[in-house]
């Protein structure tokens, strides 16, 4: 059965808002309302504090690890309107880049699949989504989708770097399209697509009756369809599926409290949901 293999006392001084393992599952990063980010070495059951990162002036909402091919990189976003990318060099962690071009709390960060390069999407309460990319020579480039969600954007998630339509099309593979999904306070789930370097709205999925709190694009393991999960203040979790004939929605469940976190397993067969009732459900 599902067993606890490690239990880490983080000693954060306030609520934890996110906790994530790195690519290999050897490092745990947590962030909290106490404005700090802590990184623990959890390899082989240990729980050593590697570092405590301070630099945010407000609660830190979410974290994202980059693919290890870019080094040990972690991005964090906070109430203080900043997005900080931290990097480990020779065992010590430091700020690599600070992005301050949002006008309100940044609620969500997510690194794109490594196939697209070092690319980070950020969703903010100012309603916009930023896509920050590393140009490789230490400088960073940012594109912004203004007014992606009126009132505010609460979550962003990247699509896998595979066009499901190509899978059964024998005429060869196309360059995968950069796509991401976002959810916001306008109760909508929106899909964005990069075309000729410009981000455009591709789809607008209506189904929730209150703020969308989290969205998650399921990993593709070669199935010829796209799946997105979204959860909302309206207590529902909706699974959106597109098998080439448009998006269809299915309400997964109606819960008793707000669902604010959803996460797909690596094979896309299980969805973990968690919310205000402090419980985690897997299905």
């Amino acid at each position: 059965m599902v067993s606890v293999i490690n239990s880490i006392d983080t000693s954060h001084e306030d609520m934890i808002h996110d906790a994530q393992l790195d690519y290999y599952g050897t490092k745990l990063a947590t962030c909290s309302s106490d404005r700090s980010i802590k990184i623990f070495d959890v390899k082989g059951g240990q729980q050593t504090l590697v570092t405590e990162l301070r630099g945010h002036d407000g609660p830190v909402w979410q974290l994202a690890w980059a693919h290890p091919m870019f080094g040990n990189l972690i991005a964090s976003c906070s109430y203080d309107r900043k997005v900080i990318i931290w990097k480990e060099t020779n065992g010590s962690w430091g700020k690599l880049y600070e992005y301050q071009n949002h006008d309100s709390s940044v609620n969500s960060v997510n690194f794109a699949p490594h196939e697209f390069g070092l690319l980070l999407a950020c969703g903010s309460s100012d309603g916009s989504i930023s896509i920050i990319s590393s140009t490789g020579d230490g400088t960073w480039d940012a594109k912004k989708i203004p007014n992606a969600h009126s009132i505010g954007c609460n979550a962003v998630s990247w699509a896998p770097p595979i066009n499901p339509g190509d899978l059964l099309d024998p005429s060869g593979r196309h360059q995968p399209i950069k796509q991401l999904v976002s959810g916001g306070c306008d109760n909508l789930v929106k899909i964005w697509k990069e075309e000729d370097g410009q981000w455009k709205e591709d789809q607008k999925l209506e189904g929730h009756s209150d703020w969308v709190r989290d969205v998650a694009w399921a990993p593709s393991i070669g199935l010829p369809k796209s799946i997105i999960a979204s959860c909302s203040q309206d207590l529902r979790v909706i699974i959106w599926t597109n098998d080439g004939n448009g998006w269809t929605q299915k309400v997964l469940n109606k819960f008793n409290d707000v669902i604010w976190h959803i996460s797909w397993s690596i094979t896309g067969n299980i969805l973990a949901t968690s919310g205000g009732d402090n419980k985690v459900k897997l299905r």
Partner: protein
Amino acid sequence: MSLQWSGEQVVAKFPDVQANTMAVDCMGVWVALAGRRAISMVNLKKPKEKPLKSARQSKWDVSCVQWNQVPSHLNLFVTAYNQKLDLHSWKDSNITSLCSMKGHSRTVSDVSWSPSDPNKILSCSVDTFINLWDVNDPRKPVRSFQTVSGAYQVKWNRLSENMFATTHEGELRIWDIREGTSPVQYIAAHLSKIHGLDWNPNSKSELATCSQDCSVKFWDINNPRQCKGSLNPGSPVWRARYTPFGQGIVTVVVPQLRRGDNSLHLWNTARSNPVHQFVGHQDVILEFQWRKQPEGSVDHQLITWSKDQSLRVWKIDSQLQKRCGHDMGEMNDSSENESSQGGRESVSQNSMHENDLETDHGNKDFQRQMSMSPDSVVFQQPQTLEQEFELMNTNIPHIQVEELDAVKRTCSVSAVSRNFNIGLRMQFPENYPCSEPPTFEFLESNLNYDIKRQLHKVMLDTALMHAKRNTSCLEPCLRQLSLALNQPYNFRPEERKTPDPEPARPFNLSWHPTKPPYNSKPSYMAWHSPSGLQDINIPFPRTSGARFSAAGYLVVFGRSHEARKGPSGTEITPKALYDLTDFASKSRNRYPPKLYSIPFHQNYSISPPTPVAENVSISEWYMYRPKVTNQPKGKRKHRPKESTEVKPVLAPVKIYDSSCLLPIQKELGKNYIIDRSNIPAMCSHNAKAASAVGRKDLVQLWSLVALTASEKLKPQNNPDDELPWAQHPFGKEMIKYLFDFYMKIHDVQTLAMLVCVLWDRENAIVPPPKKEKASLLPQSTSMEYVPPNMDNPDFLSSSTDSGWLTAGSNLLKSFKTLTSHLQVHSTRPPPHTSVQSRLPSQHHLSEVSSHPDLANMTGVLKIRRSNSLSCLEDSFEDYRIEDEEGIKEKESERQAKIHENNCRLLDPSAQNQYDVFLMSYADILFHWGYTNNSKLVLKFMTHLPEPHTGIEFGVQCFHCSQDGRGAKCGSCKNLAFNCSICHIGVKGNSMFCLKCGHGGHTTHILDWFKENSQCPTGCSCRCVEAKSEITM
């Protein structure tokens, strides 16, 4: 108004600097940080650089440091410690001690340089003396002024060179150095100790004092009996200093009493409320000073030094300055006219309306924000009704916007819900959105009066709240209406009849289980804590969560059992961070836990943004219990507020091994082998591995694969010999079934392994789309019978020797495919009507054979023989016309390929999918750390990533400056690369510097750099060093 963030700030942390006081020099370049051990200098132009330190040998702290105010002596500064003053000079990054002045018998509490005479310093002490020093004669003070009580602060008048002021407990004394040794003026300013004193930079008779009695007072020394005005920050004020612009003042709370409030407040002296709060320091602010701005710069900068060892620079942009220079509190301007007070920023703003400020100041920052996200509701407001209409998101459930008329200033909407049908009209007054809400009018509805009244209230409350903040409210109002209509069954008439327990609550409509941020709160609450207003659209923080991370781990974090629910226990978790603010203000009202928490209305901005005034943490929200109010005082201590007490709120972060829930096994990833050369052995090994982890289905699968891939079933080379096993129902069909099954359970591991074993990427030809076929082979007039392959697998089933039949419809379909092939491939236009029904009987076929055009065909018609079709064989023999060798070869090659495809167990058209299986599995193996296995799997990809092409150096032609490759220039045909030593074009071996691009013949260059390190061209590039730089 209160939602404007202040400008950017610089934060420089100096963890190794221990300083208790700070001073900014008169040019705004150097900051002196003085402490017991050292005096550190920070260059404000490069604030992030390491400060220049100069060690001090003293057991006394520096109580005061101040730079000379006169630009000609700007490198002088004075420090006070114990009973002495030290004069230093700061030159060439060195601090030189010039002289020491000792005259006091007790600790010097304050010093002040004369703003006009660079040689004069005043010092004061509790020894009751105020000494005036001339730095040219440091042995003894030039003058001494004595009073009966000790002096605490001393300040020169900024405009009148002979006048200064001192403070003595609650008293203020004004002195004139020409007027003997007694004060010219006594002012009984405060009831308790005065902490700070500052002269108005714009008026020689005005000054401000701040005191322990929680007030800041303004005085005119010509009228000492009457206080000119005062501010009441609500807590003892440590320092109050005038702003260099407008009529603002900056205050900071007395250090010992600042519990968590490490912020500065900016006030407009004409208003009773602060206009801005600077939040950021994590500890007590020890000193703050204004930096002199270069000419032409609009923004002012405030420098702060805090106990948290960080130096911060706050930018005060024109927006904020205007708020200090201009009365913004009321719509009318009559209350204060500050031009008489000479604020230079304020002169032009007297007639400015509040909304004008937002629209046409041309503030760059503001416009930048506008252009980036034009209509995010809280932060960027639409300026006009028209804009609001344009920017409105009309996608609101149940609400249909029917008419938006910006000219008449009306908006009509209709709402249709289960039980309701409502027409609503909103009329926007001229002043909207400034403090006037729109009016609402129901046009037609089937609602009864009560519900209508409720709905009206819902919208009006929302509108009023927005109107107070001068923000537009159309969309929020409609969303509230939609919400209210959405759950009509929750309208409970009986509840409304009971007396409202909370009179402040506008109505007791509990149609939404959560607390909607907009309407169920009394609007004054929002006014109370406007720092939370900006949080209205920020989601409530997540306090628990589960994340699948890496491969197979589930990270779970959450609250402890003690912190299971919010204050009310059973409610649904609220939506916005705003609710936390609301809670904060309530809990503060309930028991004022902090003696000096901010009691005034916080309708001002804060920078940087801070949630819920920092006073209530999210933990507190969860730990709060309503019961607590009934408990005796002593127990309140248990409320978690300090970090040590908060701990139980957090449950440890747990990492679960969720791999048993996944269809993939880490063990298998490690133990599986891939060996195409010996498939049976590989299969049996993998079957064993599968059985070891208890996957019985996989054991079966592997034995099945072993059989399928066994030698006996290997397809023959000759397509005519035997039907390949793949065509057998237990061949391709079964594999397809297996794939479908494992796709259904998301077992990418098995899928990828199957691909590794069964997929042969070599020579995989993909049948091109049929329409293209004709154009691909325009010359070959061959009439081709495509043997059964994946395209029309059903055709095969017609052969009786395979022992099973499929429905006739399938058969027919295959024939249609076949005939369509025939049609496409005939270049001549014979009417093929006869062909349509040709195959089923010999009769039809002979008809075809007799066709004159067919006789001329040069291609080959070939068919797989099968019992059912054997009758055709003879007639087809006739058309084996083999005239061209080339075509024949090509054809047989094609045949072979087609046959090969037939022998495949996997459908080549899905090869992209196979690649994705492999990639996904390889990625998972990478996650697990099995990098070698991962690479092995990737070797079976059909589309391999393009190999690295290496780096090629381009050459810019020496003669025509064209970029090119190779030795010769493409455009002028000269040798492109000239040796920088012999100036002859280089044909053979060359060598060049990666940095400057110069170089030449290898031998020449080598010789040159034996002795030199710089480039031979004289470009001053140090090529030898540059090389190591680049290759790093």
